[in-house]
Protein backbone atom coordinates (compact mmCIF):
# COMPACT_ATOMS: atom_id res chain seq x y z
CA UNK A 1 0.00 0.00 0.00
CA UNK A 2 1.19 3.45 -0.79
CA UNK A 3 1.27 6.35 1.60
CA UNK A 4 -2.20 7.02 2.88
CA UNK A 5 -4.19 10.15 3.66
CA UNK A 6 -6.91 9.23 6.11
CA UNK A 7 -10.30 10.10 4.69
CA UNK A 8 -12.39 6.97 5.10
CA UNK A 9 -11.21 5.47 8.39
CA UNK A 10 -13.69 3.34 10.26
CA UNK A 11 -14.24 3.24 14.02
CA UNK A 12 -16.88 1.07 15.66
CA UNK A 13 -17.51 1.31 19.38
CA UNK A 14 -19.60 -1.39 21.02
CA UNK A 15 -20.38 -2.56 17.45
CA UNK A 16 -21.81 0.89 16.53
CA UNK A 17 -20.22 2.59 13.53
CA UNK A 18 -19.51 6.15 14.73
CA UNK A 19 -17.02 6.99 11.96
CA UNK A 20 -19.08 9.93 10.69
CA UNK A 21 -18.77 11.59 14.12
CA UNK A 22 -15.05 10.93 14.72
CA UNK A 23 -12.42 13.33 13.38
CA UNK A 24 -9.29 11.71 14.75
CA UNK A 25 -8.15 8.29 15.91
CA UNK A 26 -4.81 7.30 17.41
CA UNK A 27 -3.86 3.85 18.64
CA UNK A 28 -0.89 4.11 20.96
CA UNK A 29 1.16 1.04 21.73
CA UNK A 30 4.37 0.79 23.72
CA UNK A 31 6.19 -1.59 25.99
CA UNK A 32 7.63 -1.02 29.41
CA UNK A 33 11.39 -0.85 29.39
CA UNK A 34 12.84 -3.10 32.08
CA UNK A 35 16.42 -2.48 33.05
CA UNK A 36 18.69 -5.50 33.30
CA UNK A 37 21.96 -3.74 33.94
CA UNK A 38 24.46 -5.74 35.96
CA UNK A 39 28.15 -5.45 36.62
CA UNK A 40 29.85 -5.67 33.27
CA UNK A 41 32.94 -4.53 31.52
CA UNK A 42 30.82 -2.84 28.82
CA UNK A 43 29.94 0.06 31.10
CA UNK A 44 26.54 0.46 29.47
CA UNK A 45 22.98 -0.08 30.67
CA UNK A 46 21.05 -3.06 29.27
CA UNK A 47 17.30 -3.34 28.90
CA UNK A 48 14.55 -5.72 27.78
CA UNK A 49 10.97 -5.08 26.74
CA UNK A 50 8.38 -5.58 29.46
CA UNK A 51 4.62 -5.46 29.40
CA UNK A 52 2.75 -3.92 26.48
CA UNK A 53 0.75 -0.83 27.32
CA UNK A 54 -1.88 0.26 24.79
CA UNK A 55 -4.39 3.07 24.59
CA UNK A 56 -6.64 4.74 22.05
CA UNK A 57 -7.29 8.46 21.61
CA UNK A 58 -10.45 9.58 19.82
CA UNK A 59 -11.86 12.97 18.95
CA UNK A 60 -15.64 12.95 18.67
CA UNK A 61 -18.04 15.48 17.25
CA UNK A 62 -20.63 15.52 20.00
CA UNK A 63 -24.20 14.72 19.00
CA UNK A 64 -27.10 14.34 21.43
CA UNK A 65 -29.54 12.93 18.87
CA UNK A 66 -31.17 9.55 19.37
CA UNK A 67 -28.68 6.68 18.91
CA UNK A 68 -25.82 9.05 18.20
CA UNK A 69 -22.58 9.80 20.07
CA UNK A 70 -23.84 10.72 23.55
CA UNK A 71 -26.37 7.90 23.66
CA UNK A 72 -23.70 5.41 22.56
CA UNK A 73 -20.90 6.41 24.91
CA UNK A 74 -22.68 7.46 28.10
CA UNK A 75 -24.05 3.96 28.95
CA UNK A 76 -20.53 2.56 28.51
CA UNK A 77 -18.86 4.76 31.13
CA UNK A 78 -16.93 2.63 33.60
CA UNK A 79 -17.05 -0.48 31.42
CA UNK A 80 -14.69 -2.13 28.96
CA UNK A 81 -16.03 -2.02 25.44
CA UNK A 82 -14.99 -3.51 22.11
CA UNK A 83 -13.52 -1.06 19.60
CA UNK A 84 -12.54 -1.86 16.02
CA UNK A 85 -10.52 0.65 13.96
CA UNK A 86 -9.28 0.46 10.40
CA UNK A 87 -7.57 2.98 8.11
CA UNK A 88 -10.23 2.51 5.43
CA UNK A 89 -13.86 1.51 5.69
CA UNK A 90 -13.10 -1.77 3.93
CA UNK A 91 -10.53 -4.08 5.49
CA UNK A 92 -8.22 -5.55 2.88
CA UNK A 93 -4.86 -7.24 2.48
CA UNK A 94 -3.21 -3.82 2.80
CA UNK A 95 -5.60 -2.14 5.23
CA UNK A 96 -5.85 -4.06 8.50
CA UNK A 97 -8.36 -3.76 11.28
CA UNK A 98 -7.34 -3.39 14.92
CA UNK A 99 -9.71 -4.86 17.51
CA UNK A 100 -9.38 -4.41 21.23
CA UNK A 101 -11.22 -3.85 24.47
CA UNK A 102 -10.89 -0.34 25.93
CA UNK A 103 -11.86 0.88 29.36
CA UNK A 104 -14.24 3.83 28.95
CA UNK A 105 -12.75 5.76 31.84
CA UNK A 106 -13.48 9.34 30.82
CA UNK A 107 -16.03 11.33 28.85
CA UNK A 108 -16.70 15.03 28.34
CA UNK A 109 -20.37 15.34 27.38
CA UNK A 110 -20.11 19.10 26.96
CA UNK A 111 -16.97 20.79 25.69
CA UNK A 112 -16.49 23.89 23.58
CA UNK A 113 -16.71 27.67 23.49
CA UNK A 114 -19.10 30.06 21.87
CA UNK A 115 -19.22 29.56 18.13
CA UNK A 116 -17.21 26.36 18.31
CA UNK A 117 -18.12 22.80 17.39
CA UNK A 118 -18.96 20.69 20.45
CA UNK A 119 -16.29 18.01 20.62
CA UNK A 120 -15.09 15.35 23.04
CA UNK A 121 -11.50 14.20 23.08
CA UNK A 122 -10.77 11.07 25.09
CA UNK A 123 -7.92 8.68 25.77
CA UNK A 124 -8.99 5.25 26.93
CA UNK A 125 -6.60 2.56 28.15
CA UNK A 126 -6.79 -0.74 26.33
CA UNK A 127 -7.22 -3.84 28.43
CA UNK A 128 -5.52 -6.89 26.94
CA UNK A 129 -3.96 -7.32 23.56
CA UNK A 130 -4.74 -5.69 20.22
CA UNK A 131 -5.81 -8.09 17.49
CA UNK A 132 -4.68 -7.09 14.03
CA UNK A 133 -6.51 -8.71 11.12
CA UNK A 134 -6.46 -8.57 7.33
CA UNK A 135 -9.21 -9.82 5.08
Amino acid at each position, binding site marked *: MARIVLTDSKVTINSV*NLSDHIASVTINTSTDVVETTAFSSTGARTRVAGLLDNSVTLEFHQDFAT*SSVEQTI*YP*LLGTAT*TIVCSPTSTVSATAPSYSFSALVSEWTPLNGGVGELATASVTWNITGAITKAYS
Partner: protein
Amino acid sequence: MIFTVTSEAEVCGKVKGDSLTEKELLEAGANIDALIAGNHIKANTGTPIIKPATQEGAIN
Protein backbone atom coordinates in the same frame (compact mmCIF):
# COMPACT_ATOMS: atom_id res chain seq x y z
CA MET B 1 -33.24 -13.73 21.38
CA ILE B 2 -33.69 -11.60 18.26
CA PHE B 3 -33.12 -7.83 18.18
CA THR B 4 -34.13 -5.23 15.60
CA VAL B 5 -31.75 -2.41 14.73
CA THR B 6 -33.42 0.94 15.53
CA SER B 7 -30.27 3.02 15.26
CA GLU B 8 -29.49 5.56 12.56
CA ALA B 9 -25.93 4.21 12.76
CA GLU B 10 -24.72 0.82 11.53
CA VAL B 11 -24.76 -1.78 14.32
CA CYS B 12 -22.75 -4.97 13.80
CA GLY B 13 -22.77 -4.16 10.09
CA LYS B 14 -26.59 -4.04 10.03
CA VAL B 15 -28.78 -1.04 9.31
CA LYS B 16 -32.09 0.20 10.70
CA GLY B 17 -34.82 -2.42 10.43
CA ASP B 18 -32.43 -5.38 10.12
CA SER B 19 -32.45 -8.21 12.65
CA LEU B 20 -29.57 -9.28 14.87
CA THR B 21 -29.35 -12.37 17.02
CA GLU B 22 -28.00 -12.37 20.56
CA LYS B 23 -25.26 -14.71 19.33
CA GLU B 24 -24.14 -12.24 16.65
CA LEU B 25 -23.97 -9.42 19.18
CA LEU B 26 -22.08 -11.46 21.76
CA GLU B 27 -19.62 -12.74 19.14
CA ALA B 28 -18.92 -9.11 18.21
CA GLY B 29 -18.20 -8.37 21.88
CA ALA B 30 -21.17 -6.02 22.18
CA ASN B 31 -22.64 -4.79 25.44
CA ILE B 32 -26.32 -5.47 24.70
CA ASP B 33 -27.68 -3.46 27.65
CA ALA B 34 -25.70 -0.40 26.50
CA LEU B 35 -26.98 -0.83 22.93
CA ILE B 36 -30.56 -0.94 24.19
CA ALA B 37 -29.96 2.06 26.48
CA GLY B 38 -28.51 3.95 23.51
CA ASN B 39 -31.59 3.21 21.35
CA HIS B 40 -29.51 1.22 18.88
CA ILE B 41 -31.47 -2.02 19.14
CA LYS B 42 -34.70 -3.27 20.65
CA ALA B 43 -35.65 -6.78 21.63
CA ASN B 44 -38.33 -8.49 19.59
CA THR B 45 -40.93 -9.46 22.16
CA GLY B 46 -43.45 -10.98 19.76
CA THR B 47 -44.48 -14.57 20.41
CA PRO B 48 -43.02 -16.89 17.78
CA ILE B 49 -45.53 -18.66 15.56
CA ILE B 50 -45.30 -22.39 16.12
CA LYS B 51 -46.77 -24.51 13.36
CA PRO B 52 -48.11 -27.93 14.30
CA ALA B 53 -45.83 -30.73 13.22
CA THR B 54 -47.01 -32.82 10.31
CA GLN B 55 -46.40 -36.50 10.52
CA GLU B 56 -44.58 -37.96 7.55
CA GLY B 57 -46.57 -40.51 5.67
CA ALA B 58 -49.81 -39.58 7.40
CA ILE B 59 -53.00 -40.61 5.62
CA ASN B 60 -55.68 -37.93 5.30
